[in-house]
């Protein structure tokens, strides 16, 4: 009997050797005359177990990990193909608490299927949302998205339904759907996982968006750092065209939607939606003044929806199960689930999709298992390079847009980067200013000049020079950035800088005496 063996093709698993493991398993099986079918699935998102090899047996999918090349003969000796006992055996994947306790809506298929198999997609609830949408009016589709309470997962948390409604109600012979796949935020990889591990769900979400608002052309603006996602998307798009899920006449509905991937070129600011559109138009990625809103005058001056990968990938399940179903998850005004990314110095790094409302502490310790180094966790940065640093005293904050805003922090794209007590927070603040200086689009003075000046001032502070002058100077600079920047690159760099300064003054050489004075 042929045994199905799964070895992930997700680049997080590849980075830990999954490619070589897959080849070695095939070779070993051949040499032993064993009949296996190797499937390259996505990652389950439990990266401390990667490369995580799974076998499908009557009891379910049984995992072994992390598998190294040297383990492979032993795995065969232990009859892992039939779920045999082995030191690396983690048992049925569905029973691993880290996985079992999650609420996977957007990530429902990820890790389960072969990402570029349309058959797998269809037999695991794929394209049910689109089928429903094709029988609905644009306004009804938009209403489902509005009812779901979905807010943009790219950072700004703007209600997706409201944005769609504006585009729906702006007449134009041409409209566009843009997927923002620039995922520049450090500590985040959920977009990458969706694109590599379930590209059809993004294609379906964009197609629904196009049909809803009457846009016939979509672009995925993908960062060039993601070659594996690029390949997966192009393969999936080609298959969707062949099967009539993209193109002139989607599933015989007479509705059209075309889709193309465009590559960025290593500019963080091009994740900002207006800079992204400039870039798509073939220009330098200078941020545009708003208004006009992109929903009214966006790409090539036409009404345009710009949504993050996760926002769009959450649309199919909303159209499949209804806005209310999605809305029933979450807390307050943060509805649905968030694919949270645990990164940095953490024992169990990975992807955890959960309804909003869990506290940071639960995520860091119940899921994350504390730091990887075993040392105390000193600070976490939530929401990418423009997100605030949170000290332990704030770990009881629930993951909720409003709760985070109340402590001058952001949820952003849901990345959590953990630092142990060896981190120097003044150095992290310096890096934030350096990053802003490197990535500034240069359109406004506070950001362009202020960031360079900010880095110099922090260097002086680190060297212990004139703290009584330089600390207020740093605060002034941050004020200027906060109030005088056109976009959030300049406007939010003060979040990591000031949170580091306020929560960890001792790292800036500020003694209690000095701060009292």
């Amino acid at each position: 009997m042929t045994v199905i063996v799964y070895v992930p093709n997700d680049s997080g698993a590849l980075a830990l050797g999954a490619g070589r493991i897959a080849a070695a398993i095939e070779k070993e099986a051949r040499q032993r005359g064993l009949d296996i079918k190797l499937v390259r699935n996505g990652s389950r998102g439990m990266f401390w177990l990667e490369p995580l090899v799974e076998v499908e047996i009557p009891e379910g999918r049984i995992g072994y990990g992390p598998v190294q090349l040297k383990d492979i003969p032993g795995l065969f000796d232990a009859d892992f193909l039939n779920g045999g006992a082995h030191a690396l055996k983690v048992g049925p994947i569905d029973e691993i608490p880290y996985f079992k306790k999650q609420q996977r809506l957007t990530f429902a298929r990820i890790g389960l299927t072969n990402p570029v198999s349309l058959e797998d997609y269809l037999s695991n609830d794929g394209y049910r949302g689109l089928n429903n949408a094709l029988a609905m009016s644009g306004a009804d589709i938009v209403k489902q998205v509005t009812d779901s309470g979905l807010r943009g997962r790219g950072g700004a948390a703007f209600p997706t339904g409201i944005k769609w409604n504006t585009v729906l109600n702006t007449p134009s012979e041409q409209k566009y759907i843009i997927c923002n796949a620039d995922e520049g935020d450090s500590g985040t990889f959920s977009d990458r996982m969706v694109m590599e591990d379930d590209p059809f769900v993004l294609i379906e979400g964009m197609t629904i968006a196009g049909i809803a608002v009457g846009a016939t052309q979509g672009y995925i603006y993908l960062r060039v750092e993601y070659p594996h996602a690029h390949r997966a998307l192009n393969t999936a798009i080609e298959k969707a065209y062949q099967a009539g899920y993209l193109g002139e006449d989607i599933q015989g509905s007479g509705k059209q939607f075309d889709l193309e991937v465009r590559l960025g070129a290593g500019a963080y600011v091009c994740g900002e939606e207006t800079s992204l559109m400039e870039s798509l138009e073939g220009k330098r990625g200078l941020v545009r003044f708003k208004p006009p809103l992109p929903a009214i005058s966006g790409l090539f001056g036409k009404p345009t929806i710009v949504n993050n990968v996760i926002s769009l990938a959450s649309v199919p399940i909303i159209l499949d199960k209804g806005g209310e179903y999605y809305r029933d998850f979450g807390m307050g005004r943060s509805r649905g689930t968030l694919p949270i990314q645990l990164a940095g110095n953490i024992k169990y790094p990975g992807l955890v999709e959960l309804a909003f409302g869990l506290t940071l502490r639960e995520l860091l310790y119940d899921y994350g298992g504390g730091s990887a180094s075993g040392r105390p966790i000193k600070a976490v940065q939530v929401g990418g390079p423009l997100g605030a640093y949170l000290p332990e005293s704030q770990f009881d904050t629930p993951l909720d847009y409003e709760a985070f805003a109340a402590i001058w922090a952001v949820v952003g794209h849901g990345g959590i980067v953990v630092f142990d007590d060896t981190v120097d927070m003044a150095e992290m603040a310096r890096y934030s200013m350096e990053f802003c200086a490197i990535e500034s689009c240069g359109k406004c003075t506070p950001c362009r000049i202020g960031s360079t000046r900010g880095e110099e001032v922090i260097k002086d502070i680190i060297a212990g020079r004139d703290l009584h002058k330089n600390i207020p100077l740093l605060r002034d600079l941050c004020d200027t950035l906060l109030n005088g920047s056109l976009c959030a690159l300049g406007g939010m760099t003060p979040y990591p800088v000031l949170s580091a300064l306020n929560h960890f003054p001792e790292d800036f050489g500020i003694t209690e005496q000095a701060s009292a004075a």
Partner: protein
Amino acid sequence: MTETVSMFSIVKEITSALKDKPGALLPILHDIQNALGYIPADSIPIIASELRLSRAEVHGVISFYHYFRETPPGKQTIHLCRAESCQAMGSKKLEEHVKDKLGIDYHETTADGRFSLEPAYCLGLCSCSPSMQIGEDVYGRVSNESFDSIINEMETLS
């Protein structure tokens, strides 16, 4: 001489194939860099005339994006992640080691032309920091030792 001729014909071919796409400039620059490894200064007038842009506009776009380069890269380009998650897992020590081992800083190429070194600001591999990328190959939990063996293996292969 023949090299210049083939450069011109490659750039011409790419540009005329893509110039009618909406927002064609970035796709053109990507294809040129894929084919030649960089975007030669001599290609700018060709692109500019095909797209009806000024040379300054084309150059402005090339220089805006960190990824586009105007000088030839080494045989392999190493993209080392400098961002926060990797810093939390010791990337600064790794960075020192890498620069030391290769004898170059960021944006430089080794004297023997084998390696170029570029910073990356997150590779989406933060669940296995510190990380790097060489071509399409990705590497996680990179240590000084694993870096050396990756590089040594490449040197023996080439």
